């Protein structure tokens, strides 16, 4: 299901941008009014003033602090099995203990060290791969474009989690392969959006001017296009971070990612399904996933509003 999210965004993006927009041909009066409205709207929505974005930032900040100082702030060793099993939350163990008598609070705190850096890493990987491929495809066109975009289409034809499962099944279940699998299913989103942006930017005056001055294709890509791609790609990445956390923890939940005894949120939720009386085993790590994904989405969603509407539409989702 997070799968749909990933390929939805850009499937639509690619389409929406292509669709003719009758509202855009309006004559001066209406166009002026529209432009003014747009300016006003954008000025109104500085992302840093939105309560959603601030909430998201604060949550992410808290999680980052927890990740950096995990060993300092967590009350116990996340792997130590020295307490009775399935103890309900108490003053001693705020989140209770799990099936092996480990302190769940400590495990949730240490879980930030698994989920957040890996999510960040794989989003950066997917972003770089997707952006480069998309930019090259869009700028040079021809057979490169053809090959890259057909590959993207192929990947997008599979729901992400199934394809990721297939990759993990082929390569063997561990966290590295899970990350690899998520990268494999994530890059086409970036490639699609970036290709579209490059295609439209290529026609623009400043790129044409630079080309006339004799700039090489790579120079145009690096100098003229990069700044224009940075914003949309950053927003896309912010939105994708949440997906990455979901997908990765989903794979771990299924036992295809992090392996025991690692303190990984998805795997911890899975441990909770063994004993429904001990609700705390699953609830707290799951809540940590929900909170972190929500924070990324709050941020990404607000950032997208700050983009100009045409670009925002390309990465809606």
């Amino acid at each position, binding site marked *: 299901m997070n799968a749909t999210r990933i390929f939805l965004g850009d499937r639509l993006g*690619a389409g929406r941008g292509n669709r003719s927009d009758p509202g855009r041909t309006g004559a001066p009066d209406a166009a002026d009014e529209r432009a003014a409205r747009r300016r006003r709207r954008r000025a109104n929505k500085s992302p840093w003033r939105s309560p959603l974005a601030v909430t998201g930032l604060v949550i992410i900040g808290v999680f980052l602090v927890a990740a950096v100082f995990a060993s300092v702030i967590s009350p116990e060793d996340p792997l130590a099995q020295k307490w009775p099993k399935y103890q309900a939350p108490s003053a001693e163990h705020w989140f209770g203990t799990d099936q092996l008598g480990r302190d769940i609070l400590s495990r949730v705190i240490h879980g930030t060290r698994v989920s957040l850096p890996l999510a960040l890493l794989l989003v950066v990987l997917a972003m770089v791969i997707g952006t480069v491929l998309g930019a090259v495809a869009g700028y040079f066109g021809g057979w490169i474009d053809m090959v890259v975009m057909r590959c993207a289409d192929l990947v997008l034809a599979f729901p992400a989690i199934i394809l990721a499962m297939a990759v993990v099944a082929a390569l063997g279940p561990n966290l590295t392969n899970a990350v690899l699998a998520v990268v494999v299913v994530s890059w086409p989103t970036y490639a*699609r959006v970036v290709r579209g942006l490059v295609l439209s930017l290529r026609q623009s005056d400043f790129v044409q001017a630079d080309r006339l001055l004799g700039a090489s294709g790579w120079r145009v890509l690096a100098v003229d296009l990069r700044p224009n791609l940075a914003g949309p790609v950053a927003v896309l990445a912010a939105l994708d971070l949440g997906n990455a956390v979901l997908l990765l923890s989903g794979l771990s*939940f*299924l036992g295809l990612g992090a392996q025991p005894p690692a303190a990984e949120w998805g795997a911890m939720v899975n441990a909770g399904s063994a004993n*429904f009386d001990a609700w705390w085993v699953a609830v707290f790590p799951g809540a940590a996933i929900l909170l972190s994904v929500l924070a990324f989405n709050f941020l990404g969603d607000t950032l997208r509003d700050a983009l100009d509407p045409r670009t925002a539409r390309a990465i809606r989702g």
Partner: protein
Amino acid sequence: MSTSSADTGVDRGTSRPGSAPVKGAAPGRGTASAKRRSHPFARFVLVRLGVGVLLCLGITILAFGLTHAVPGDPVAANLGQRALNDPAAVAAFKAKNGLDDSLPSQYWTYLTNLLHGDMGTSQQTHRPVWDDLGDKIPASLELALAAIVLALVIGVGLGIVAAVTRGRWPDRIIRVVSLAGVSVPVFWLAQVAFYVFSFKLGWIQAGGRLSPGAIPPDDITGLYTVDSLLTGEWGTFGEAFSRMVLPACVLAAFNIGVLTRFTRAAVLEALGNDYVRAARAKGLPESTVIRRHALRPALTSILTVAGLTFGGMLAGTVLVENVLSWPGLGQYAYKSALNLDLPSIMGVCLFVAVVYVVINLLVDLLYGVIDPRIRLS
């Protein structure tokens, strides 16, 4: 974004103008389409069909490639370690899949096998993958259908409300709710929902399609709710229906979020059109303006999302099916992945990808129904 094809307004991703070689993609259609070739919409559909066929071919290549990219022996990967000790089985497998031939000819063998409905044998069940899929598909289909209906009704409804009340408190609340919907880990939501509604409150039965030991209705469509209605087994229907409520709701949650956000954006975009202002200037009630003038153009993009969502749901049920023991494709795929049962998981992949292609084609056809510019131009 692309500046081309703006006038048709229908190019959506899987094919870009001129990039897919379409001629010959639909063999045997020459005579049938001779008359229709003049009709742009028919041609448009044929082009999409051709792209779909090509995509399916690509998917088989990908599946084939993945199977062969497995580190180690494909015989071991496909037959399992135990069978390796049986030279006869190994030889038979090699002969059937032409493993001693060159890669292209191996692919050809694979493809012809596939076209004959032979997707290999599952290592867990020792049955043909095709038969396994046949058993699992109806369960997932039933669940996905229920969930998509739920998600469409709630998601589109919320999206419209959000668009109409844009910037005011209902919009803000819906925004947070829909963001929460796309942020919640389904496997956790399924567990929590089961704990609260089934385990603690006991309001609703969950786990499996029917209670253990119950006899499923006669196999007509494979969908228990439909079959039990057709055969008039009311008790079974109640049972099947109530057991579907929890997984369907959980599965819908994420998609409600997605659909809400898309609907809101699409309706807002439509509301900004001159023709909506013109409709208001005609003095029509606001409800008519929204329903007839704004929702209709928004419907095309809502439909696209719904189609993709459905395709994703069929396999995206993996997590939900596992938590709530729903014996469908997702659970099957999961077990296959865990056992490194490649033929089975590739079978699921192929099926899902074909569904994706078919759904896209249906969505394209529906575009024509909704938008006269595509149908008639």
